[in-house]
């Protein structure tokens, strides 16, 4: 196995709020390997973005607080290196694409200048003219038509999809080794989403960057990701390659997600939602945080009292699940899938 380019180890982050302390992520651990796309899925508030935001120093502290853990990038812990070095990595070797292109671009500066700024921050002595030329190339690469002219336009003169293209251009400006896309298509309408997925692909091909794709859109994950991290209530509950996760999930939450997904490969009459609400992050349920909503727990005491550790299946650490009864789940899910088979 190759060396991971990025390793998150036991990362725990808390937020102080008026109602109490929220533990946004607990003992989150995952690796990102060169060239791969890692999808991080989970519902809102499950801590999807917090791990990467913390790693890049983009979580305001306070109210945020780093309780423990490491974020190793090329062997260096990003959580401990001096601010100046982190700044050099941020936007250079590790770049981000944000969720909402409507608000993520500064309304009072020209689009082109905002991208040039990213270039000039990381390349000393790059002249304004050269930065402009390179920016126009980037804009063309992400499919912004009339790039020369659109360089001088302001964000409000761009549509949502075009703005997201500009954001992607900004993120890949410095040939990053790691690209983090935080819900890159969520704020866009469906037709534009498909285009942006194509742009993301092109961007990956161009930079060959390892990508973390944070999303709650399982379709997007199936489309782009090689491996998947499933998060629930601030913990990683399942981790595996995309086929394993979609075809033989070993955590009841993932099973629930799959059952609530419209799929063309399964002929289903009804989509089954996961009952209940995501738990309060201030006082999460004891034991497994998912047990109050879990269809497989069936009131077993172990689910209520013991926090299930993340453990591997079969072929080593390629497939991990945090369920006490994951083995049992396999049989369960197979029968469930069979029952759904068209007759």
């Amino acid at each position, binding site marked *: 196995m190759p060396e991971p380019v990025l390793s998150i180890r036991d990362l725990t982050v808390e937020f102080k709020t008026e109602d109490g302390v929220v533990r946004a992520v607990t003992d989150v651990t995952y690796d990102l390997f060169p060239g791969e796309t890692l999808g991080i899925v989970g519902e809102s508030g499950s801590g999807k973005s917090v791990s990467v935001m913390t790693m*890049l120093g983009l979580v305001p502290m306070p109210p945020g607080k780093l309780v423990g853990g490491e974020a190793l990038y090329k062997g260096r812990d990003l959580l401990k290196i001096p601010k100046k070095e982190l700044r050099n990595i941020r936007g250079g070797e590790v770049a981000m694409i944000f969720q909402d292109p409507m608000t993520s671009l*500064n309304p009072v500066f020209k689009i082109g200048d905002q991208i040039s700024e990213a270039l000039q921050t990381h390349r000393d002595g790059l002249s304004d003219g050269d930065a402009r030329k390179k920016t126009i190339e980037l804009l063309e690469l992400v499919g912004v038509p009339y790039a020369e002219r659109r360089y001088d336009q302001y964000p409000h003169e761009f549509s949502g999809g075009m703005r997201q293209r500009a954001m992607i251009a900004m993120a890949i400006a410095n040939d990053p080794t790691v690209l983090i896309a935080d819900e890159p298509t969520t704020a866009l309408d469906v037709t534009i989403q498909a285009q942006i997925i194509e742009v993301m692909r092109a961007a990956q091909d161009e930079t060959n960057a390892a990508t973390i794709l944070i999303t709650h859109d399982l379709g997007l994950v199936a489309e782009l990701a090689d491996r998947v991290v499933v998060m629930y209530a601030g913990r990683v509950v399942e981790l595996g390659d995309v086929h394993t996760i979609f075809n033989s999930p070993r955590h009841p939450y993932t099973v629930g997600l799959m059952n609530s997904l419209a799929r063309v490969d399964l002929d289903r009459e009804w989509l089954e939602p996961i009952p209940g609400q995501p738990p309060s992050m201030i006082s999460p349920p004891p034991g497994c945080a998912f047990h109050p909503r879990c269809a497989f727990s069936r009131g077993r005491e172990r689910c209520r009292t013991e926090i299930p550790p993340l453990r591997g299946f079969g072929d080593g650490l390629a497939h991990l699940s945090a369920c006490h009864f994951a083995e049992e789940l396999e049989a369960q899910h197979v029968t469930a899938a069979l029952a759904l088979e068209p007759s």
Partner: protein
Amino acid sequence: MLTYVVRRLLYSIVVLFAASFIIFFFVSVSNDPLSFLRMQPTASEITIENISERKHLDEPIPVRYLYWVQDMFTNQFGTTTIGDRPILPDLTRVMGHTLQLVIAAELIAILLAIGIGVYSALRQYSAFDYSATTFSFVGLATPVFWLALMLQVLFVNIYLWFDIRIFYTANLSGIDPGTGLSFLLDRAQHLGLPVITLAIASIATYSRFMRASMLEVVNSDYVRTARAKGLHERKVTMRHAFRNALIPLVTIIALNLGALLSGAVVTETVFALDGMGFYYYNQLLLGDPYPVMAWLMVVATLVVVFNLVADIAYGILDPRVRYD
């Protein structure tokens, strides 16, 4: 932008025309211009008759309005009813004094308030932030006349105890202030206290606005984007956040300037400062409508002009606002 400005100027003429009619009509019906003279035992019937005839007071209001408009353009806004003084020179003089007062006070206030507001926002809930907030609320809650009086008392006592005379009375037109440095020193001594009084009120307001808009901006997505680019924190704040946070403040300042140039009536009155506000107050006491109407006309013009200034400033700062 130029087309917009020209168009706005044309609208302004219409607005001012309407304003002139309203001003003339309401001031004319509110008071008999001769009432003051009629109360003077020394003013004979003949004198009053003469004045009435000279100022066309025996004509109906629309006709008097036309005479007034004619005077406005050709005859320095006409003359006062009592004393027959031309009005415009007096207005120009008090306007000059008010300009000195307001420009000095606002410059100080804007610079300090921006500094205080930005720093408060960046260090939210720090000791500095709490002190600045307390100062602002106290500043806003303090009546201007009281503050002005207290400042007078303070500096009079400093004079009495230590024999140090820092500020003078605000008799601005008494002696020739000279030019250059001696002019500045003379104005500083005369206008010091009124400037402090006015500035405190403005600082309190502006710094609250600056803090609020800066806070809104530093937590916005595009500031996070700027940070994610790897920009230095100073550049994130000064380039990306500050420029956006300034937009609402500029509008408030431009509108406030229009109001302040009509004279900080209370401040000028307490300090007996020969400015717009003090002039207006005195003319109202005299009950002579012509200076009052001339004053109102000038103020209406100022308000219209500064509204336009606010809009233009807005358009320059915010590319989303385009007027063509």
